[in-house]
């Protein structure tokens, strides 16, 4: 396990270096940030002074070295837009995104796993067809679109749920449901496929012949064996969820990292983009590592070393 953790930590470092290098390149291809940071009546002298203060007049290699050093030390400086420490701003927004994605995953699992099991058990029945329909619907509708539809139905028409903000659990329902709908489709399909594979294996026939209840066969033995691909899928979906969260946070005015990062990109706020990219990359790598450990604990045949 220790060897595994050391190896993965090294791989995470390489991944972060790669992401940061690409980010640095993209930032500098995106143009001169001083144009957007100053007001319209700013003079050329003011623009040059600001470029000097931000270190943008330094040679690219020096800027890259400073950028990597800042990444390494976690000192990402002040946000050029907000004039507050960039990393702190991102970390303040992180819990909102974590809550949204966790709720979406929980909702997705709560609906998709039972639905996938049912679809596998009642293969080719109307339940299977219904589950497929939900899966197609969830996967084919862009989250942005389904979010707007849910606002129109549950907020504007029925007036059951708020359309904006993060006040209380009620405000979480629509954004989490929208994001959950998207992930739900994939989890339902993988659960169905995985359960069908497991239920067709010899050990299941043996369990049934030994007189175990169908409930025990399905949930105690079947689902446990089928859960490894489901857990892996959930881990992989995290990146999709973070991408979806950008849109959902915008649609529902949810104060998370995704919206913050997108606004920072538009404002050419390099330190804030830097901090958001670093935090998201780290989160993604850590979740993936966690998923690997979880899979190993679910299936002893998987060896981390």
């Amino acid at each position, binding site marked *: 396990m220790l060897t595994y953790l050391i190896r993965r930590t090294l791989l995470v470092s390489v991944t972060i270096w790669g992401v940061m290098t690409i980010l640095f390149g993209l930032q500098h291809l995106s143009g*001169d940030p001083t144009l957007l940071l100053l007001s319209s009546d700013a003079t050329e002298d003011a623009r040059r002074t600001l470029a000097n203060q931000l270190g943008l007049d330094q040679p690219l290699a020096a800027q890259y070295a400073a950028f990597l050093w800042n990444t390494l030390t976690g000192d990402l400086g002040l946000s050029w837009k907000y004039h507050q420490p960039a990393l702190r701003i991102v970390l303040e927004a992180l819990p909102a995104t974590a809550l949204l994605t966790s709720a979406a995953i929980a909702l997705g699992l709560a609906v998709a796993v039972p639905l996938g099991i049912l679809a596998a058990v009642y293969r080719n029945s109307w339940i299977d067809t219904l589950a497929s329909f939900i899966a197609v619907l969830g996967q084919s509708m862009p989250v942005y679109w389904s979010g707007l539809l849910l606002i129109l139905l549950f907020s504007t028409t029925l007036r059951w749920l708020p359309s904006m*903000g993060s006040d209380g659990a009620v405000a979480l329902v629509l954004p989490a449901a929208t994001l959950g709908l998207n992930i739900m489709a994939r989890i339902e399909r993988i659960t169905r496929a995985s359960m069908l594979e497991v239920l067709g294996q010899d050990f299941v026939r043996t369990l049934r012949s030994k007189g175990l209840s169908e409930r025990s066969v399905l949930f105690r033995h079947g689902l446990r064996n089928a859960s490894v691909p489901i857990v892996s899928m959930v881990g992989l979906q995290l990146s999709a969820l973070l991408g979806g969260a950008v849109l959902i946070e915008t649609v529902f005015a949810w104060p998370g990292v995704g919206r913050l990062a997108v606004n920072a990109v538009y404002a050419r706020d390099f330190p804030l983009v830097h901090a958001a990219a670093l935090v998201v990359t780290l989160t993604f790598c850590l979740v993936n590592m966690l998923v690997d450990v979880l899979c190993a604990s679910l299936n002893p045949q998987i060896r981390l070393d």
Partner: protein
Amino acid sequence: MLNRRALTRRGLLGGAGVAVGAGALAGGARAELKGDTLVIGQAGDIVSLDPAYRVDTLTGNVQKHLYDTVLTRRPDMGVGPGAAEAVERIGPTAWRLRLRPDRRFANGEPVDAQCVQYTLARLNAPETRSPIRSFFEPLNKVTVESPTSALIETETPDALFLARMTNLQLVPPRATEKLGLKFGEAPIGSGPYTLDHWRRNDEVVLNANPTYGGPAPRFARLVIRPVPEEIARISAVKTGQAQLVTNISPNQADALQRAGAVQVLRTASNRVMVVQFNKMAAPADDPRFRRAVGLAINRDEIIRGLLKGFASPVRGIFGAAIQGVPQDVRGDFDYDPDQARRIIQELGLAGREIELAGAAGRYPLDRECALAIGAQLRRIGLQVKVRTSDYGSFAEDIKTNRVAPVFIQPHGNVWLDPLPQIIAFFDSRGHWSGWRDPALDAMIARAGNAEGDARLARVGDLIRKLHDDAIAVPLYADEVIYAAVPELKWSPRADDLIVASEVS
């Protein structure tokens, strides 16, 4: 196997539970209108609560309630008293501020001449990195004559002095120094409200300031929420989650007006869409081509068809509220596609591929406007390729002359004066300008040094120059559109600001 019938029953029960749960949530979700709280939904979040970092209206809407300005803009855009009860011009380059003796910051510090001096010194200090430093740079000599009297001297006559004073939000010297960076999140002002809390990208909540020296605010609590999605903003006002929301698009405004469930409030803005040219890119270096473009654009078609009437044509590059613009000088072009087509044929440009660039998502329907103009230019025989991008990339292209030969530039004007707008967009040194013309630069400089009637005449000359050389083709001033609950009474302002004391 599991019993299918039992499962179905359970499913139904589960479904019923979800429905009941949702019904129970309904009560909690319904927001009631509260007479002492005003909830405003804006299209984006604020940048900072420190006035040194205010660069946009969204931020201005919050800061306006936290800080006193030396002078204020009245709803009719005239200049009225603020923290100063009077401003006297005591010489061509000297102004005296007479401050009210009774104003104090929320922490007890006095609003006095020293705080005027400190505020300006702080804005002009390079280490502050204030994006609005250029606006206050001419005001670099401030003398404290007494607690209620400050003398400000400029190097040259400053026609924008009063406009600068309407934007100068005063900060308390001791608290600002003590708090440092934290001042941007825990501000102390002398305005009608104080900060309750700010959750970035979520909400800013302000409470009425009990020690405010002016009239007591109408609302005890002011909540300002960033809601980027327009459908969510409209839903918020329809369901009473907000009483007033900003940035309604013409299409939605039209639909809302027909439905009648909420009020649509509108006013002409100071934002003017202008077609401009990159002189470095042929054929835009030829004034005849630029004139043909001006003649080919049918503004009425765009205003009626695309903007549903939520815009008005402009005679020059200025919005209606801009002061100091001669009214008898026209800077726009009559729609004459036949003449435009003839010019294009004479120039041998018929069938020539021309790129038209514009920003997308900065102002209402800006991308669609670019597409519509592209279609109109095709009618005079040009092959037009329309390319839109985010404003940052677009502005960079303009500044570096990499922009397309023809581009649509949205002009804003926070100064309510014509010259800063002309400088920003047409002077060689202008922040958004890629135009290089020493003769025009000299004319701008002359206008800048003039005052009174002479200045008015020189601004007229500049408008003529922009028209005669076909440097700019003014299109329309779009409208600022809001949606509000039916019982709200308010007249929108031309400067886009929402001032709670004007709402009832």
